[in-house]
Protein backbone atom coordinates (compact mmCIF):
# COMPACT_ATOMS: atom_id res chain seq x y z
CA UNK A 1 0.00 0.00 0.00
CA UNK A 2 2.86 2.40 0.72
CA UNK A 3 3.86 1.91 -2.89
CA UNK A 4 0.50 3.21 -4.01
CA UNK A 5 0.74 6.33 -1.87
CA UNK A 6 4.22 7.11 -3.15
CA UNK A 7 3.32 6.55 -6.77
CA UNK A 8 0.06 8.43 -6.43
CA UNK A 9 1.83 11.44 -4.94
CA UNK A 10 4.31 11.58 -7.81
CA UNK A 11 1.50 11.11 -10.32
CA UNK A 12 -0.58 13.90 -8.78
CA UNK A 13 2.30 16.36 -8.80
CA UNK A 14 3.20 15.70 -12.42
CA UNK A 15 -0.42 15.61 -13.59
CA UNK A 16 -1.14 18.85 -11.77
CA UNK A 17 1.81 20.57 -13.42
CA UNK A 18 1.51 19.17 -16.93
CA UNK A 19 -2.26 19.45 -16.78
CA UNK A 20 -1.94 23.18 -16.29
CA UNK A 21 -0.40 23.46 -19.73
CA UNK A 22 -2.89 20.99 -21.19
CA UNK A 23 -5.74 23.28 -20.17
CA UNK A 24 -3.86 26.42 -21.22
CA UNK A 25 -3.16 25.01 -24.67
CA UNK A 26 -6.62 23.53 -25.08
CA UNK A 27 -5.07 20.13 -25.71
CA UNK A 28 -8.02 18.07 -24.56
CA UNK A 29 -7.74 15.78 -27.54
CA UNK A 30 -4.12 14.89 -26.74
CA UNK A 31 -5.02 14.34 -23.09
CA UNK A 32 -7.59 11.75 -24.17
CA UNK A 33 -5.69 10.22 -27.05
CA UNK A 34 -2.33 9.50 -25.46
CA UNK A 35 -3.54 7.44 -22.46
CA UNK A 36 -5.92 5.50 -24.68
CA UNK A 37 -3.12 4.62 -27.09
CA UNK A 38 -0.90 3.70 -24.17
CA UNK A 39 -3.55 1.16 -23.12
CA UNK A 40 -2.51 -1.08 -26.02
CA UNK A 41 1.09 -0.88 -24.86
CA UNK A 42 0.18 -1.98 -21.36
CA UNK A 43 -1.93 -4.83 -22.71
CA UNK A 44 0.87 -5.97 -24.99
CA UNK A 45 3.44 -5.71 -22.21
CA UNK A 46 1.44 -7.88 -19.84
CA UNK A 47 1.06 -10.41 -22.63
CA UNK A 48 4.75 -10.84 -23.29
CA UNK A 49 5.70 -10.49 -19.66
CA UNK A 50 7.43 -7.14 -19.89
CA UNK A 51 7.05 -4.33 -17.38
CA UNK A 52 3.73 -2.53 -17.81
CA UNK A 53 5.39 0.86 -17.42
CA UNK A 54 7.69 0.03 -20.30
CA UNK A 55 4.81 -0.92 -22.60
CA UNK A 56 2.89 2.17 -21.58
CA UNK A 57 5.89 4.39 -22.10
CA UNK A 58 6.71 3.14 -25.57
CA UNK A 59 3.16 3.37 -26.88
CA UNK A 60 2.47 6.70 -25.18
CA UNK A 61 5.61 8.23 -26.66
CA UNK A 62 4.89 6.87 -30.13
CA UNK A 63 1.32 8.15 -29.91
CA UNK A 64 2.35 11.58 -28.66
CA UNK A 65 5.05 12.04 -31.27
CA UNK A 66 2.75 10.63 -33.94
CA UNK A 67 0.09 13.17 -33.06
CA UNK A 68 2.70 15.90 -33.14
CA UNK A 69 4.03 14.79 -36.51
CA UNK A 70 0.55 14.52 -38.01
CA UNK A 71 -0.32 17.88 -36.49
CA UNK A 72 2.67 19.51 -38.13
CA UNK A 73 1.39 18.34 -41.48
CA UNK A 74 -2.00 19.86 -40.79
CA UNK A 75 -3.74 16.58 -40.12
CA UNK A 76 -5.56 17.10 -36.82
CA UNK A 77 -8.28 15.03 -38.18
CA UNK A 78 -9.86 11.73 -38.91
CA UNK A 79 -6.56 9.86 -39.20
CA UNK A 80 -5.60 10.69 -35.64
CA UNK A 81 -9.03 9.95 -34.21
CA UNK A 82 -9.26 6.64 -36.07
CA UNK A 83 -5.71 5.68 -35.14
CA UNK A 84 -6.53 6.13 -31.45
CA UNK A 85 -9.61 3.94 -31.81
CA UNK A 86 -7.53 1.27 -33.56
CA UNK A 87 -5.11 1.41 -30.63
CA UNK A 88 -7.97 0.75 -28.24
CA UNK A 89 -9.10 -2.14 -30.40
CA UNK A 90 -5.54 -3.47 -30.45
CA UNK A 91 -5.46 -3.32 -26.69
CA UNK A 92 -8.65 -5.36 -26.50
CA UNK A 93 -7.11 -7.85 -28.95
CA UNK A 94 -3.97 -8.29 -26.84
CA UNK A 95 -5.98 -8.76 -23.69
CA UNK A 96 -8.29 -11.25 -25.39
CA UNK A 97 -5.24 -13.46 -25.82
CA UNK A 98 -4.66 -13.57 -22.10
CA UNK A 99 -6.60 -15.64 -19.63
CA UNK A 100 -7.41 -12.71 -17.40
CA UNK A 101 -9.32 -10.90 -20.16
CA UNK A 102 -12.12 -9.16 -18.30
CA UNK A 103 -10.42 -8.17 -15.04
CA UNK A 104 -7.29 -7.01 -16.88
CA UNK A 105 -9.31 -4.79 -19.20
CA UNK A 106 -11.18 -3.36 -16.27
CA UNK A 107 -8.15 -2.43 -14.20
CA UNK A 108 -6.18 -1.05 -17.16
CA UNK A 109 -9.07 1.16 -18.21
CA UNK A 110 -10.47 2.23 -14.83
CA UNK A 111 -7.46 2.03 -12.54
CA UNK A 112 -6.25 -0.24 -9.82
CA UNK A 113 -5.18 0.75 -6.36
CA UNK A 114 -2.42 -1.83 -6.33
CA UNK A 115 -1.59 -1.05 -9.92
CA UNK A 116 2.10 -0.42 -9.51
CA UNK A 117 4.42 -3.08 -8.18
CA UNK A 118 7.18 -2.33 -5.71
CA UNK A 119 10.02 -2.48 -8.17
CA UNK A 120 8.33 -0.01 -10.49
CA UNK A 121 8.21 2.77 -7.93
CA UNK A 122 11.81 3.72 -8.66
CA UNK A 123 11.05 3.99 -12.36
CA UNK A 124 7.98 6.08 -11.68
CA UNK A 125 9.97 8.38 -9.42
CA UNK A 126 12.60 8.75 -12.12
CA UNK A 127 10.02 9.58 -14.78
CA UNK A 128 8.44 12.05 -12.39
CA UNK A 129 11.74 13.75 -11.70
CA UNK A 130 12.53 13.97 -15.41
CA UNK A 131 9.10 15.47 -16.11
CA UNK A 132 9.37 18.12 -13.42
CA UNK A 133 12.91 18.96 -14.48
CA UNK A 134 11.73 19.35 -18.07
CA UNK A 135 8.95 21.71 -17.02
CA UNK A 136 11.38 23.78 -14.95
CA UNK A 137 13.82 24.07 -17.83
CA UNK A 138 11.15 24.76 -20.43
CA UNK A 139 8.98 26.91 -18.22
CA UNK A 140 9.26 30.27 -19.95
CA UNK A 141 9.05 29.12 -23.58
CA UNK A 142 6.31 26.66 -22.65
CA UNK A 143 4.27 29.29 -20.87
CA UNK A 144 4.77 31.89 -23.56
CA UNK A 145 3.89 29.54 -26.41
CA UNK A 146 0.79 28.42 -24.54
CA UNK A 147 -0.51 31.92 -23.86
CA UNK A 148 0.63 33.80 -26.95
CA UNK A 149 2.15 31.64 -29.68
CA UNK A 150 2.69 34.59 -32.05
CA UNK A 151 4.59 36.61 -29.49
CA UNK A 152 6.56 33.50 -28.62
CA UNK A 153 7.57 33.08 -32.25
CA UNK A 154 8.56 36.71 -32.48
CA UNK A 155 10.73 36.25 -29.41
CA UNK A 156 12.54 33.38 -31.05
CA UNK A 157 10.82 30.51 -29.29
CA UNK A 158 10.73 27.42 -31.48
CA UNK A 159 7.05 26.67 -30.93
CA UNK A 160 7.17 23.45 -32.92
CA UNK A 161 9.94 22.14 -30.69
CA UNK A 162 8.11 23.26 -27.58
CA UNK A 163 4.95 21.53 -28.80
CA UNK A 164 6.89 18.30 -29.26
CA UNK A 165 8.36 18.57 -25.77
CA UNK A 166 4.91 19.24 -24.38
CA UNK A 167 3.57 16.12 -26.09
CA UNK A 168 6.44 14.08 -24.65
CA UNK A 169 5.55 15.45 -21.22
CA UNK A 170 1.95 14.32 -21.67
CA UNK A 171 3.23 10.89 -22.69
CA UNK A 172 5.39 10.67 -19.56
CA UNK A 173 2.48 11.74 -17.38
CA UNK A 174 0.24 9.13 -18.94
CA UNK A 175 2.87 6.43 -18.50
CA UNK A 176 3.08 7.09 -14.77
CA UNK A 177 -0.61 7.57 -14.17
CA UNK A 178 -2.38 4.87 -16.17
CA UNK A 179 -1.50 1.97 -13.83
CA UNK A 180 -3.11 3.75 -10.91
CA UNK A 181 -5.91 5.80 -12.40
CA UNK A 182 -6.64 3.88 -15.58
CA UNK A 183 -6.37 4.76 -19.26
CA UNK A 184 -9.91 6.03 -19.66
CA UNK A 185 -9.93 8.25 -16.59
CA UNK A 186 -6.35 9.47 -16.51
CA UNK A 187 -7.20 12.60 -18.42
CA UNK A 188 -9.48 13.89 -15.63
CA UNK A 189 -6.41 14.44 -13.44
CA UNK A 190 -4.85 16.54 -16.19
CA UNK A 191 -7.99 18.58 -16.75
CA UNK A 192 -10.04 18.88 -13.56
CA UNK A 193 -7.57 20.19 -10.98
CA UNK A 194 -5.82 22.60 -13.38
CA UNK A 195 -9.10 24.00 -14.71
CA UNK A 196 -10.35 24.45 -11.15
CA UNK A 197 -7.12 26.16 -10.16
CA UNK A 198 -7.22 28.51 -13.12
CA UNK A 199 -10.76 29.54 -12.25
CA UNK A 200 -9.59 30.69 -8.85
CA UNK A 201 -6.12 32.06 -9.42
CA UNK A 202 -4.67 34.01 -12.33
CA UNK A 203 -0.93 33.96 -11.99
CA UNK A 204 0.61 30.86 -13.60
CA UNK A 205 2.92 30.02 -10.72
CA UNK A 206 0.13 30.15 -8.18
CA UNK A 207 -2.24 28.31 -10.49
CA UNK A 208 0.23 25.48 -10.97
CA UNK A 209 0.76 25.21 -7.23
CA UNK A 210 -2.97 25.14 -6.61
CA UNK A 211 -3.45 22.64 -9.41
CA UNK A 212 -0.90 20.32 -7.81
CA UNK A 213 -2.55 20.75 -4.41
CA UNK A 214 -5.97 19.89 -5.78
CA UNK A 215 -4.56 16.92 -7.69
CA UNK A 216 -2.85 15.63 -4.55
CA UNK A 217 -6.03 15.94 -2.52
CA UNK A 218 -7.99 14.22 -5.29
CA UNK A 219 -5.62 11.29 -5.54
CA UNK A 220 -5.12 10.82 -1.80
CA UNK A 221 -8.83 10.98 -1.11
CA UNK A 222 -9.50 8.55 -3.95
CA UNK A 223 -6.99 6.02 -2.70
CA UNK A 224 -8.27 6.23 0.86
CA UNK A 225 -11.88 5.92 -0.25
CA UNK A 226 -11.12 3.10 -2.65
CA UNK A 227 -9.20 1.25 0.01
CA UNK A 228 -12.05 1.52 2.48
CA UNK A 229 -14.99 0.77 0.19
CA UNK A 230 -13.29 -1.45 -2.39
CA UNK A 231 -14.93 0.67 -5.03
CA UNK A 232 -12.77 1.43 -8.07
CA UNK A 233 -10.31 4.29 -7.69
CA UNK A 234 -11.31 5.68 -11.10
CA UNK A 235 -14.78 6.41 -9.77
CA UNK A 236 -13.42 8.62 -7.01
CA UNK A 237 -10.90 10.37 -9.23
CA UNK A 238 -13.54 11.17 -11.87
CA UNK A 239 -16.07 12.35 -9.33
CA UNK A 240 -13.70 14.42 -7.18
CA UNK A 241 -12.17 16.06 -10.26
CA UNK A 242 -15.64 17.05 -11.39
CA UNK A 243 -16.49 18.42 -7.95
CA UNK A 244 -13.23 20.38 -7.84
CA UNK A 245 -14.01 21.83 -11.26
CA UNK A 246 -17.53 22.81 -10.19
CA UNK A 247 -16.25 24.43 -7.01
CA UNK A 248 -13.65 26.36 -8.98
CA UNK A 249 -16.15 27.59 -11.54
CA UNK A 250 -18.68 28.51 -8.87
CA UNK A 251 -16.03 30.48 -7.03
CA UNK A 252 -15.14 32.35 -10.22
CA UNK A 253 -18.79 33.04 -11.00
CA UNK A 254 -19.48 34.24 -7.46
CA UNK A 255 -16.48 36.53 -7.57
CA UNK A 256 -17.68 37.97 -10.85
CA UNK A 257 -21.04 38.74 -9.35
CA UNK A 258 -19.50 40.42 -6.34
CA UNK A 259 -17.08 42.55 -8.31
CA UNK A 260 -19.73 43.17 -10.94
CA UNK A 261 -17.10 44.07 -13.50
CA UNK A 262 -15.16 42.11 -16.10
CA UNK A 263 -14.72 38.45 -15.19
CA UNK A 264 -11.73 37.80 -12.96
CA UNK A 265 -11.28 34.39 -14.50
CA UNK A 266 -9.93 35.77 -17.75
CA UNK A 267 -7.20 37.49 -15.84
CA UNK A 268 -3.77 38.36 -17.05
CA UNK A 269 -3.92 36.68 -20.42
CA UNK A 270 -7.04 38.58 -21.42
CA UNK A 271 -5.12 41.16 -23.33
CA UNK A 272 -3.26 38.57 -25.30
CA UNK A 273 -5.77 35.79 -25.72
CA UNK A 274 -9.34 36.60 -24.72
CA UNK A 275 -10.55 33.08 -24.17
CA UNK A 276 -12.41 31.73 -21.23
CA UNK A 277 -10.67 29.38 -18.87
CA UNK A 278 -13.26 26.72 -19.52
Amino acid at each position, binding site marked *: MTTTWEVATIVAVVAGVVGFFVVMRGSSFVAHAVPQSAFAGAAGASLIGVSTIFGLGVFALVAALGIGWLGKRGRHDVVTALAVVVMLGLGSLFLSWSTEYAPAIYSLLFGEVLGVSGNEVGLTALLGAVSIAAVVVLYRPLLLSSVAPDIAEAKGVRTQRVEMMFLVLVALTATMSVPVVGALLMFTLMVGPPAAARSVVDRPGAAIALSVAIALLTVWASIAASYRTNWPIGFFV*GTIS*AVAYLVGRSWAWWRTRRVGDSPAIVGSDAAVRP*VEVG
Partner: protein
Amino acid sequence: MLGSIVFEAGFFQNHAVRTALIIGVIVPLVSGCVGTFTVIRGQAFAGEALSDMGTLGGAGADLVGVSPLWGFVGVGVVVAGTMELFGVQRRRGRDVATGIVLGAMLGLSALFLYFDTTHSSTTGATITILFGSLFQVSGVTVPALVILGLIGLLVVGFLYRPLLLTSLSSDLATARGVRVRSIGLAFLMLMGVSVSLSSVAVGTILGTALLIGPAATALKLTRRPWSAMLTAGGIGIAATWLGILLSYDSFYWPPAKKGWPVSFFVVTLIFLFYLAADLSTWLRARRVGSEARGTGARWDRDPVGAR
Protein backbone atom coordinates in the same frame (compact mmCIF):
# COMPACT_ATOMS: atom_id res chain seq x y z
CA MET B 1 -12.70 -25.20 -52.33
CA LEU B 2 -11.76 -21.55 -52.06
CA GLY B 3 -15.09 -21.10 -50.34
CA SER B 4 -14.23 -23.46 -47.54
CA ILE B 5 -10.93 -21.63 -46.99
CA VAL B 6 -12.47 -18.19 -46.82
CA PHE B 7 -15.57 -19.24 -44.94
CA GLU B 8 -14.84 -21.59 -42.07
CA ALA B 9 -17.26 -24.43 -41.59
CA GLY B 10 -20.69 -23.53 -40.41
CA PHE B 11 -20.41 -19.80 -41.10
CA PHE B 12 -23.71 -19.41 -42.87
CA GLN B 13 -25.56 -21.79 -40.58
CA ASN B 14 -24.46 -20.11 -37.39
CA HIS B 15 -27.34 -18.22 -35.82
CA ALA B 16 -25.18 -15.64 -34.08
CA VAL B 17 -23.41 -14.93 -37.35
CA ARG B 18 -26.67 -14.41 -39.21
CA THR B 19 -27.90 -12.03 -36.53
CA ALA B 20 -24.59 -10.19 -36.66
CA LEU B 21 -24.83 -9.85 -40.43
CA ILE B 22 -28.27 -8.31 -40.16
CA ILE B 23 -27.09 -5.87 -37.49
CA GLY B 24 -24.08 -5.35 -39.72
CA VAL B 25 -26.36 -3.88 -42.36
CA ILE B 26 -28.57 -1.57 -40.36
CA VAL B 27 -26.00 -0.14 -37.95
CA PRO B 28 -23.35 0.88 -40.54
CA LEU B 29 -26.11 2.26 -42.75
CA VAL B 30 -27.37 4.57 -40.00
CA SER B 31 -23.85 5.43 -38.84
CA GLY B 32 -22.79 6.19 -42.40
CA CYS B 33 -25.71 8.52 -43.09
CA VAL B 34 -25.59 10.32 -39.76
CA GLY B 35 -21.80 10.28 -39.78
CA THR B 36 -21.67 12.01 -43.14
CA PHE B 37 -23.42 15.01 -41.65
CA THR B 38 -21.32 14.70 -38.49
CA VAL B 39 -18.18 15.16 -40.57
CA ILE B 40 -19.71 17.91 -42.73
CA ARG B 41 -20.82 19.82 -39.65
CA GLY B 42 -17.50 19.26 -37.87
CA GLN B 43 -19.23 17.69 -34.89
CA ALA B 44 -17.07 14.59 -34.54
CA PHE B 45 -16.11 15.71 -31.04
CA ALA B 46 -19.75 15.74 -29.93
CA GLY B 47 -20.31 12.37 -31.54
CA GLU B 48 -17.34 10.84 -29.76
CA ALA B 49 -18.39 12.31 -26.43
CA LEU B 50 -21.93 11.00 -26.88
CA SER B 51 -20.62 7.54 -27.63
CA ASP B 52 -18.24 7.46 -24.66
CA MET B 53 -20.89 8.78 -22.30
CA GLY B 54 -23.17 5.95 -23.35
CA THR B 55 -20.93 3.75 -21.23
CA LEU B 56 -22.83 4.95 -18.19
CA GLY B 57 -26.13 4.00 -19.77
CA GLY B 58 -24.87 0.58 -20.72
CA ALA B 59 -23.43 -0.08 -17.28
CA GLY B 60 -26.59 1.12 -15.59
CA ALA B 61 -28.84 -0.94 -17.85
CA ASP B 62 -26.72 -3.99 -17.24
CA LEU B 63 -26.92 -3.48 -13.49
CA VAL B 64 -30.68 -3.25 -13.65
CA GLY B 65 -30.83 -6.29 -15.89
CA VAL B 66 -31.99 -4.68 -19.11
CA SER B 67 -30.32 -4.81 -22.49
CA PRO B 68 -27.53 -2.21 -22.73
CA LEU B 69 -29.18 -0.77 -25.85
CA TRP B 70 -31.80 0.99 -23.73
CA GLY B 71 -29.14 2.49 -21.51
CA PHE B 72 -27.20 3.71 -24.54
CA VAL B 73 -30.29 5.27 -26.09
CA GLY B 74 -31.44 6.84 -22.84
CA VAL B 75 -28.09 8.47 -22.09
CA GLY B 76 -27.58 9.41 -25.73
CA VAL B 77 -30.85 11.30 -25.98
CA VAL B 78 -30.57 13.00 -22.58
CA VAL B 79 -26.97 14.10 -23.10
CA ALA B 80 -27.74 15.29 -26.63
CA GLY B 81 -30.51 17.45 -25.28
CA THR B 82 -28.29 18.80 -22.51
CA MET B 83 -25.49 19.57 -24.95
CA GLU B 84 -27.83 21.68 -27.01
CA LEU B 85 -29.11 23.40 -23.91
CA PHE B 86 -25.65 24.45 -22.83
CA GLY B 87 -24.87 25.52 -26.36
CA VAL B 88 -21.61 23.74 -26.98
CA GLN B 89 -20.30 26.52 -29.14
CA ARG B 90 -17.05 27.95 -27.83
CA ARG B 91 -14.45 25.34 -28.41
CA ARG B 92 -12.09 25.90 -25.52
CA GLY B 93 -14.65 25.92 -22.75
CA ARG B 94 -16.54 23.09 -24.37
CA ASP B 95 -13.56 20.77 -24.42
CA VAL B 96 -12.85 21.07 -20.73
CA ALA B 97 -16.47 21.04 -19.57
CA THR B 98 -17.39 18.06 -21.74
CA GLY B 99 -14.25 16.27 -20.61
CA ILE B 100 -15.11 16.81 -16.95
CA VAL B 101 -18.64 15.51 -17.43
CA LEU B 102 -17.32 12.53 -19.39
CA GLY B 103 -14.84 11.80 -16.62
CA ALA B 104 -17.53 11.83 -13.98
CA MET B 105 -19.78 9.59 -16.07
CA LEU B 106 -16.98 7.14 -16.81
CA GLY B 107 -16.13 7.08 -13.13
CA LEU B 108 -19.72 6.23 -12.29
CA SER B 109 -19.69 3.60 -15.03
CA ALA B 110 -16.64 2.02 -13.39
CA LEU B 111 -18.60 1.85 -10.14
CA PHE B 112 -21.66 0.28 -11.81
CA LEU B 113 -19.50 -2.26 -13.58
CA TYR B 114 -17.82 -3.07 -10.30
CA PHE B 115 -21.21 -3.67 -8.67
CA ASP B 116 -22.09 -5.86 -11.62
CA THR B 117 -19.12 -8.15 -11.05
CA THR B 118 -19.67 -8.43 -7.33
CA HIS B 119 -23.41 -8.91 -7.38
CA SER B 120 -23.99 -11.07 -10.39
CA SER B 121 -20.67 -12.86 -10.78
CA THR B 122 -20.41 -12.00 -14.46
CA THR B 123 -17.25 -10.26 -15.49
CA GLY B 124 -18.01 -9.69 -19.13
CA ALA B 125 -20.04 -6.50 -18.79
CA THR B 126 -17.02 -4.25 -19.17
CA ILE B 127 -16.06 -5.84 -22.45
CA THR B 128 -19.64 -6.01 -23.74
CA ILE B 129 -20.25 -2.34 -23.14
CA LEU B 130 -16.88 -0.89 -24.09
CA PHE B 131 -15.99 -3.17 -26.98
CA GLY B 132 -19.36 -4.39 -28.19
CA SER B 133 -21.22 -7.65 -28.31
CA LEU B 134 -22.01 -8.17 -31.96
CA PHE B 135 -22.18 -11.96 -31.64
CA GLN B 136 -24.14 -11.91 -28.40
CA VAL B 137 -27.08 -9.74 -29.32
CA SER B 138 -30.28 -11.64 -28.69
CA GLY B 139 -33.91 -11.40 -27.81
CA VAL B 140 -35.82 -8.22 -28.27
CA THR B 141 -32.65 -6.18 -28.82
CA VAL B 142 -32.38 -7.30 -32.44
CA PRO B 143 -35.77 -6.12 -33.71
CA ALA B 144 -35.43 -3.03 -31.49
CA LEU B 145 -32.10 -2.26 -33.18
CA VAL B 146 -33.59 -2.68 -36.63
CA ILE B 147 -36.63 -0.55 -35.86
CA LEU B 148 -34.58 2.21 -34.24
CA GLY B 149 -32.25 2.10 -37.21
CA LEU B 150 -35.06 2.42 -39.71
CA ILE B 151 -36.55 5.31 -37.77
CA GLY B 152 -33.13 6.94 -37.76
CA LEU B 153 -32.83 6.58 -41.52
CA LEU B 154 -36.30 8.01 -42.01
CA VAL B 155 -35.42 11.02 -39.86
CA VAL B 156 -32.24 11.60 -41.86
CA GLY B 157 -34.26 11.53 -45.05
CA PHE B 158 -36.83 13.87 -43.57
CA LEU B 159 -34.24 16.34 -42.30
CA TYR B 160 -31.95 16.08 -45.29
CA ARG B 161 -32.63 19.47 -46.86
CA PRO B 162 -32.67 21.60 -43.69
CA LEU B 163 -29.63 19.72 -42.40
CA LEU B 164 -27.74 20.43 -45.57
CA LEU B 165 -28.78 24.08 -45.50
CA THR B 166 -27.78 24.64 -41.87
CA SER B 167 -24.49 22.83 -42.38
CA LEU B 168 -23.54 25.00 -45.33
CA SER B 169 -24.65 28.33 -43.93
CA SER B 170 -26.81 28.94 -40.89
CA ASP B 171 -27.59 32.47 -42.08
CA LEU B 172 -28.88 31.22 -45.39
CA ALA B 173 -30.89 28.57 -43.59
CA THR B 174 -32.44 31.10 -41.22
CA ALA B 175 -33.28 33.35 -44.14
CA ARG B 176 -35.10 30.43 -45.69
CA GLY B 177 -37.14 29.87 -42.56
CA VAL B 178 -35.22 26.91 -41.18
CA ARG B 179 -35.11 26.76 -37.37
CA VAL B 180 -31.37 26.32 -36.98
CA ARG B 181 -31.39 25.53 -33.27
CA SER B 182 -34.16 22.96 -33.61
CA ILE B 183 -32.33 21.27 -36.45
CA GLY B 184 -29.17 21.33 -34.38
CA LEU B 185 -30.95 19.69 -31.48
CA ALA B 186 -32.61 17.12 -33.72
CA PHE B 187 -29.27 16.24 -35.24
CA LEU B 188 -27.59 15.83 -31.86
CA MET B 189 -30.33 13.44 -30.82
CA LEU B 190 -29.99 11.61 -34.11
CA MET B 191 -26.29 11.21 -33.35
CA GLY B 192 -27.24 9.97 -29.88
CA VAL B 193 -29.38 7.24 -31.40
CA SER B 194 -26.77 6.38 -34.02
CA VAL B 195 -23.98 5.95 -31.49
CA SER B 196 -26.23 3.81 -29.28
CA LEU B 197 -26.75 1.43 -32.15
CA SER B 198 -23.06 1.25 -32.96
CA SER B 199 -22.30 0.82 -29.24
CA VAL B 200 -24.17 -2.47 -29.30
CA ALA B 201 -22.13 -3.61 -32.28
CA VAL B 202 -18.59 -2.42 -31.52
CA GLY B 203 -18.86 -0.82 -28.11
CA THR B 204 -18.96 2.72 -26.75
CA ILE B 205 -15.31 3.62 -27.01
CA LEU B 206 -14.82 2.12 -30.47
CA GLY B 207 -18.11 3.40 -31.86
CA THR B 208 -16.56 6.63 -33.11
CA ALA B 209 -14.88 4.64 -35.87
CA LEU B 210 -18.24 3.58 -37.29
CA LEU B 211 -19.55 7.11 -37.07
CA ILE B 212 -16.79 9.10 -38.72
CA GLY B 213 -14.58 6.52 -40.44
CA PRO B 214 -16.72 5.43 -43.40
CA ALA B 215 -18.21 8.93 -43.69
CA ALA B 216 -14.83 10.64 -43.87
CA THR B 217 -13.68 8.00 -46.36
CA ALA B 218 -16.74 8.56 -48.52
CA LEU B 219 -16.29 12.33 -48.44
CA LYS B 220 -12.82 11.86 -49.83
CA LEU B 221 -14.27 9.99 -52.76
CA THR B 222 -17.32 12.10 -53.57
CA ARG B 223 -18.53 15.63 -52.88
CA ARG B 224 -22.26 15.11 -53.15
CA PRO B 225 -23.82 14.41 -49.74
CA TRP B 226 -26.31 11.84 -51.06
CA SER B 227 -23.67 9.68 -52.69
CA ALA B 228 -21.42 10.21 -49.68
CA MET B 229 -24.10 8.83 -47.36
CA LEU B 230 -24.63 5.78 -49.54
CA THR B 231 -20.91 5.22 -49.99
CA ALA B 232 -20.36 5.59 -46.26
CA GLY B 233 -23.06 3.03 -45.57
CA GLY B 234 -21.52 0.67 -48.10
CA ILE B 235 -18.04 1.02 -46.65
CA GLY B 236 -19.38 0.48 -43.15
CA ILE B 237 -21.27 -2.63 -44.16
CA ALA B 238 -18.24 -4.00 -46.01
CA ALA B 239 -15.99 -3.43 -43.01
CA THR B 240 -18.50 -4.96 -40.61
CA TRP B 241 -19.26 -8.02 -42.72
CA LEU B 242 -15.59 -8.63 -43.39
CA GLY B 243 -14.96 -8.19 -39.69
CA ILE B 244 -17.63 -10.73 -38.85
CA LEU B 245 -16.13 -13.20 -41.29
CA LEU B 246 -12.59 -12.73 -40.00
CA SER B 247 -13.69 -13.01 -36.41
CA TYR B 248 -15.54 -16.24 -37.11
CA ASP B 249 -12.60 -17.66 -39.06
CA SER B 250 -10.20 -16.65 -36.30
CA PHE B 251 -11.74 -19.10 -33.88
CA TYR B 252 -8.85 -21.52 -34.17
CA TRP B 253 -6.16 -18.91 -34.64
CA PRO B 254 -3.36 -18.62 -32.11
CA PRO B 255 -2.61 -17.77 -29.49
CA ALA B 256 -5.72 -18.27 -27.42
CA LYS B 257 -7.79 -20.34 -29.85
CA LYS B 258 -11.03 -18.64 -28.93
CA GLY B 259 -11.33 -16.15 -31.74
CA TRP B 260 -10.20 -12.58 -32.07
CA PRO B 261 -12.68 -9.83 -31.11
CA VAL B 262 -14.91 -8.79 -33.98
CA SER B 263 -14.84 -5.12 -33.03
CA PHE B 264 -11.06 -5.11 -33.43
CA PHE B 265 -11.42 -6.30 -37.03
CA VAL B 266 -14.20 -3.86 -37.88
CA VAL B 267 -12.37 -0.85 -36.52
CA THR B 268 -9.04 -1.78 -38.11
CA LEU B 269 -10.70 -2.38 -41.48
CA ILE B 270 -12.44 1.01 -41.31
CA PHE B 271 -9.06 2.61 -40.63
CA LEU B 272 -7.45 0.76 -43.54
CA PHE B 273 -10.25 1.78 -45.91
CA TYR B 274 -9.75 5.39 -44.87
CA LEU B 275 -6.01 5.16 -45.45
CA ALA B 276 -6.64 3.64 -48.87
CA ALA B 277 -8.95 6.48 -49.86
CA ASP B 278 -6.48 8.98 -48.46
CA LEU B 279 -3.68 7.44 -50.48
CA SER B 280 -5.71 7.30 -53.68
CA THR B 281 -6.71 10.95 -53.29
CA TRP B 282 -3.09 11.92 -52.77
CA LEU B 283 -1.96 9.87 -55.77
CA ARG B 284 -4.70 11.36 -57.92
CA ALA B 285 -3.72 14.87 -56.87
CA ARG B 286 -0.09 14.21 -57.68
CA ARG B 287 -0.91 12.83 -61.09
CA VAL B 288 -3.27 15.58 -62.20
CA GLY B 289 -1.47 18.42 -60.50
CA SER B 290 -2.22 20.75 -57.67
CA GLU B 291 -5.44 22.12 -59.21
CA ALA B 292 -7.08 18.84 -58.39
CA ARG B 293 -6.33 19.25 -54.72
CA GLY B 294 -9.72 20.83 -54.32
CA THR B 295 -11.40 17.43 -54.64
CA GLY B 296 -13.02 16.53 -51.40
CA ALA B 297 -11.07 19.21 -49.57
CA ARG B 298 -14.17 21.22 -48.84
CA TRP B 299 -15.53 18.68 -46.40
CA ASP B 300 -12.10 17.70 -45.15
CA ARG B 301 -11.43 20.77 -43.10
CA ASP B 302 -10.60 19.51 -39.63
CA PRO B 303 -13.81 17.49 -39.23
CA VAL B 304 -12.79 16.24 -35.81
CA GLY B 305 -12.36 19.76 -34.55
CA ALA B 306 -9.39 18.64 -32.53
CA ARG B 307 -6.40 20.78 -31.85
